């Protein structure tokens, strides 16, 4: 069982300042919720580089190699088709499909990788219990901390001191 403490901030600066401060105090797992990406807050939260590009590269290699080998095996090994005496293993003719399978696999890896890293789909989350949190996708800049229930009051107090509005607590139902 865990508690979430949420608070809304006026601007990016206040949000980043609060994120840095709470991080120094070592309060649970912090997250920011913003309607647009705010790179500064990602830095303040100490989030590193996203592994999505690496996942994309894996998809590209698999898609490219897989696409080419598929054509080679099908047309040159398993069932050779003689078209006008051209070689069964016709490398130049295999390029367009290899390119397409590379792109397709890369795209699928990117999207599924992004979903997996973001924990999608997860249509319900405890933070949605807070009615005011609805502004997070419209114009609100929110900070959330996932903490032990005992520490929740302290974190809420700290958020208020840092200038947060609408400070709220949510308990996760076990």
């Amino acid at each position, binding site marked *: 069982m865990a508690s979430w403490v949420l608070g809304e901030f006026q601007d990016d600066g206040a949000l980043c300042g609060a994120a840095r401060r709470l991080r120094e105090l070592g309060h649970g797992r912090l997250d920011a919720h913003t309607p647009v990406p705010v790179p500064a807050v990602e830095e303040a939260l100490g989030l590193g580089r*996203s592994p999505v590009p690496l996942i994309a590269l894996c998809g590209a290699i698999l898609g490219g190699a897989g696409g080419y080998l598929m054509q080679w095996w099908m047309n040159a090994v398993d069932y050779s088709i003689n078209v006008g005496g051209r070689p069964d293993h016709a490398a130049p003719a295999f390029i367009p499909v290899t390119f397409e399978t590379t792109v397709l696999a890369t795209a699928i890896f990117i999207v599924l990788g992004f979903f997996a890293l973001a924990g999608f789909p997860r249509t319900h989350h405890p933070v949605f219990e807070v009615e005011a949190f609805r502004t997070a996708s419209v114009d609100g800049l929110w900070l959330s901390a996932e903490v032990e229930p005992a520490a929740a009051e302290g974190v809420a107090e700290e958020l208020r001191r840092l200038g947060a509005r609408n400070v709220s607590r949510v308990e996760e139902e076990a």
Partner: protein
Amino acid sequence: MSAESAARVERVDPLEPVPVLAGRPGDRELNDALFEPVWAKTRRGWLALFAVAVPLAGLLFLAIAYTLATGIGVWGNNVPVGWAFDIINFVWWIGIGHAGTLISAILLLFQQRWRTSINRFAEAMTLFAVIQALIFPALHTGRPWFDFWLFPYPSTLGLWPNFKSPLIWDVFAVNTYFLVSLLFWYVGLIPDLAALRDTSRSRAARVAYGIFALGWRGSARHWRHHRIAYLLLAGISTPLVLSVHSVVSFDFAVSVLPGWHTTVFPPYFVAGAIFSGFAMVLTLVIPARKVFGFESVITGKHLDNMAKVMLATGLMVSYGYLVEHFNAWYSGDHLESFLFFTTRQRGPYAPVYWLMIFCNVVVPQVFWFRRARQSTWALWVAALLVNVGMWTERFVIIVTSLHRDFLPSSWAMYYPTWVDWSIYLGTLGFFGTLFLLFLRFVPAVSASEVKELRRELEHEAQAHAAH
């Protein structure tokens, strides 16, 4: 923000006299304005258009059912004109889709800000255009219920597709294009779906948008992956879009038919695709921004830039025509010369050829004039003519090249039947239906990206004021 500082923002760039975002609304105002078409009651104009589009879409399905029940002999195709309306319309629709990817992917990589407010619109157009395009080759196989034979799957027949055939390349290219466009569009849509969920007033809407939003909480952890995922998708869509129409052109260029067998085809097809796609974006965006009041986010700047892209790609298309004719003359091949200098210009389909020259070569020249680029009427009419022109281009390429076979005894005319026309008009209706549903249920302008643009402009204005 005060009027004075707003004025300062507008003066930032002397090369951009018309702003990409008119006024300086706040996030909430932007959100409300851009979501208004979704939350407001259905408009009369929308209903009227929907009432036109749906029966036409119905006509499509009736014509398809009739074709399936009777066989493709009900089309006007014959020998030697074995490719006709089906392939003309396939190429036309695929080409239209290309502008969507150009706007959403290529212009994103080039950091062209004016793409922000039209990218979702254009990307939706891509998806729906590709759906129309896919209908034609699927039916043209004659037995669409066996179309899965085109995919490499371990079948009891023990056969595999022939990967040396451009037609198989086309299957891979077009399907990849559709899937990647869909993923790209959806990933870009997630933050707005979450905002729709959070601004919904009814439980049904909240649940429906909530499911599609997948649980987006605008978390820094989400954005971190989202940003790079979106950028990478743009990165791979860019070569993809160039490959798709190149592969489509290989369907022609790899054959030995005069009129098709030309090395200029891939770049000329890609330029033509973007040309026709921008024409379609303008055709749709000019009325839509009026009806939904998007003039502050889709400004004169956007229309002006799109007109310039059309002028540039129109000139490339004209160059393609020139090269084709030059090669026909320079090759010294009498079949090529006969096709390009006799059949096309003076043959039975000459009016279509001259209409093509008028629409694709002459009409875009009006975009040299600023007054034409700034008049929505002039733009709209020119865009419609370009749509017509690009359709006639495919007609000229396909039908005139085929109807004069190598043996004069095999010459034949092609006339579309009522089924051909019904399927073509039907796809326009089906496209319209999908597009209208999109306008009704999804914000046509990306609110999250416009909000980001607004912040960027503000930061720049502040930096400018500090100097």
